């Protein structure tokens, strides 16, 4: 098992379209706040003076006051929602209806001759409110709202009998000027959303690439570490055998070979993903010596905590030397508690094998020879 300490992000790709959302939402929020600011600026800077100047013109005048206040409140409401990162939901369409209703009432309260011109203060701000209502939907719903507004206004002009050429031209000019800005902002929102999605996708791919690189690096380091573990013991033995410096007939050389084989077997077992790595590694070494006709019994008792690779190596290393030197039978036992683990081997070894140990904090080894047997016990304490 590769001991990669939880890569920064899962390596598996996330479903398309879910990851880029946060970036797009973030950008849209900024844009929405900007449009709220524009709307309030238009309302207060342009519409309010027009409204106040023509106040005595309107019939009745209070409709204009209520309409203005309602527009300002809706714009502020959008600001608060944008601040809290809440995107308009289905309720935007009833709200659009309300806005249109206010606009129709405000327009109806303007005397016919003043319908085109400065007295019609609500024409521009309504477009900006339409931008706020459809900012996250793209430019088409915005265009639909604006065209609807234009049609309603035209209808009101017709009802008021203001269909002469000059009025219609004035209306067209006013519309083109105002729409230019509003459609541009709507289109910008769409473009920014695309860019955000692209940016997020690229960032995700880069992150994936970085994770893969980190995993590869870790794997490589792991392999080098394994090689180093073998290089100090296995490599010299192989070199000695190759050059003839070590004689395979020598009992000690043969035992060294057996020990190295057991060590390599344990090293391979270290990488396996199993529920009980310690017993799995011991089992790997036991399998190896059992092939030489030695009987090994293994008994395991108690619950053990998860042990690091270093501790597992320290616990198993002395076992290897004892097991490879066993003549007929051995007993391997593991006892565990939440804060302590002891591994023991009792074997009928005739020759005292040199014990190799791995330095590890908290691990102690005891050895005893009695009754023609060798008993080695390694204990780890948390």
């Amino acid at each position, binding site marked *: 098992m590769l001991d990669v300490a939880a890569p920064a992000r899962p390596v598996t790709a996330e479903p398309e379209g879910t990851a880029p959302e946060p970036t797009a939402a973030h950008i849209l929020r900024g844009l929405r706040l900007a449009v709220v600011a524009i709307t309030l600026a238009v309302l207060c800077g342009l519409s309010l003076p027009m409204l106040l100047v023509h106040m005595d013109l309107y019939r009745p005048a209070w409709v204009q006051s209520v309409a203005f206040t309602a527009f300002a409140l809706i714009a502020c409401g959008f600001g608060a929602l944008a601040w809290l990162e809440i995107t308009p939901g289905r309720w935007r369409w009833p709200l659009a209806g309300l806005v249109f209703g206010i606009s129709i009432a405000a327009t109806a309260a303007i005397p016919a001759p003043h319908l085109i011109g400065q007295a019609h203060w609500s024409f521009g701000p309504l477009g900006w409110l339409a931008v706020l209502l459809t900012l996250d939907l793209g430019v088409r719903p915005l265009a639909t709202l604006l065209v609807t507004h234009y049609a309603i206004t035209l209808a009101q002009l017709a009802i008021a009998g203001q269909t002469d050429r000059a009025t219609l031209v004035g209306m067209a000019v006013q519309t083109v000027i105002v729409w230019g800005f509003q459609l541009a902002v709507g289109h910008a929102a769409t473009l920014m959303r695309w860019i955000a999605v692209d940016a997020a996708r690229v960032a995700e791919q880069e992150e994936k690439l970085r994770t893969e690189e980190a995993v590869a690096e870790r794997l490589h380091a792991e392999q080098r570490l394994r090689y180093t573990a073998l290089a100090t013991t296995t490599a010299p033995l192989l070199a000695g055998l190759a050059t003839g410096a070590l004689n395979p007939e020598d009992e000690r050389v043969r035992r060294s070979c057996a020990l190295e084989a057991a060590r390599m077997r344990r090293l391979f077992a270290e990488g396996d993903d199993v529920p009980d790595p310690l017993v799995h590694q011991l089992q790997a070494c036991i399998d190896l010596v059992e092939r030489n006709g030695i009987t090994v019994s293994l*008994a395991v*008792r*108690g619950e053990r905590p998860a042990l690091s690779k270093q501790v597992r190596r320290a616990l198993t290393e002395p076992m290897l030397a004892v097991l490879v030197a066993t003549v007929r039978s051995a007993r391997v*036992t593991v*006892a565990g508690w939440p804060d302590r683990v*002891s591994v023991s081997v*009792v074997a009928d070894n005739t020759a005292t094998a040199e014990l190799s140990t791995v330095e590890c904090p908290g691990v102690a080894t005891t050895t005893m020879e009695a*009754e023609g047997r060798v008993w080695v*016990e390694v204990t780890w304490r948390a």
Partner: protein
Amino acid sequence: MSITVVVIDDHPAIAAGVRVWCASANPPIKVLGAGANVRTAWLEPGSLADVVVFDLQLSGGTPSYGDLRRLVDDGRKVVVYTMRDDPDTALTCLDIGASGYVTKAEGERHLVAAIRAAAHDQPYTTPALAGALGTDTRAQRPKLAPREVDVLIEWFHCESKEMVARKLSLSVRTVNSYIDRVRVKYANAGRGAPTKAALVARAIQDGLIDVGDL
């Protein structure tokens, strides 16, 4: 008078092996009968045996704790002799009131001694059982002294009381008494059974444990 046993095991070879061990014991233990079914222990001559050697998994099924409980509640001294090497089974059998628990891997070295101890209401703990007692973390376990746990675990590891004694700088006698005291503490805990009460009474009578220690 020699000790008598009845062997309940569905493998004839096991029953034959137990017969041989009992016959060659010194003094010999008399096998009154052997059978593949627990009925053998309830019918004469099996019902007259001092000790029942009981295979927990007859015909390879689930552990027959019910049969064990009925025997124990009738005051029979049962030595569970089983393939099962897991601590839970061992602890459950002790709680029910089995006088001994010997795994088949340990049979040759420990079964005869376990039968003898059971016949005399004395505790006997094999290394496999010691491992289970020493690593027991269940909430209802009896409280053991750290030294008792050490002795149990070393006995589990090396299977030699001499080596345990040397390692912990104790006498073999002390090692034995530590192991036996734990077994008595377990007999005094959990479910009540006549065999458990007899074991505790005998331990107090022998001075192995004080009433205050329980």
